[in-house]
């Protein structure tokens, strides 16, 4: 019984993506197996060196790199979306696994939920 949270909303514009991160960390904190899949404009959360202080926000880079310690099983990113937004291995934060087929990823989890 594991949960996949899918983030397809871009960072910062709305709270949806951030709420998904909180959801995943809460699940992991209660020892519920959970994973994160970023797709569409959501892959932009995974770009390194974000500096959102000028728009009054905090970067999630540290949270994402700490995710395994909090028990989040996997952080996945959809390959096609990464290509669309020019996210190569050098731009991606560490600890992200690329996923080719979203259907397979979704089928591997009993619960799937979207952010926002």
């Amino acid at each position, binding site marked *: 019984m594991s949960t996949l949270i899918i983030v397809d909303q871009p960072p910062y514009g709305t709270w949806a993506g951030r709420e998904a991160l909180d959801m995943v960390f809460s699940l992991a904190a209660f020892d519920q197996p959970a994973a994160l899949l970023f797709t569409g404009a959501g892959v932009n959360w995974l770009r390194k060196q974000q500096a959102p202080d*000028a728009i009054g926000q905090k970067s999630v880079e540290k949270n994402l790199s700490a995710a395994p310690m909090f028990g989040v099983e996997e952080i996945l990113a959809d390959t096609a979306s990464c290509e669309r937004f020019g996210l190569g291995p050098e731009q991606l934060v560490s600890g992200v696994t690329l996923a080719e087929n979203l259907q397979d990823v979704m089928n591997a989890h009993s619960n799937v939920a979207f952010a926002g």
Partner: protein
Amino acid sequence: MTSTQPANPTLHILNKPPGHPRFETCLQAIQDCDQLVLTENAVLALADRSVTLPAACKAMKADVDARALNEQTRTGTIDYAELVRLTAKHSRIISW
């Protein structure tokens, strides 16, 4: 009714991400004499290979830096003071 007077240059301010329905509607509404400013999530268009941007296009620096898109600016970046100047310069403004 063909309008003979020169087209009224319009400032388009867009904050929707590529893929949002209003993003496409905005791009289609832009005439040659208009100016587009990308703010908030719209700056993701700078990294989106599937998007072609009009020539007269600027992006808000704070939003570009927030999303670490500073190297791939296909357009110039402006700050808020510059945006205010643009709003003063254009008689017609559409906030999408």
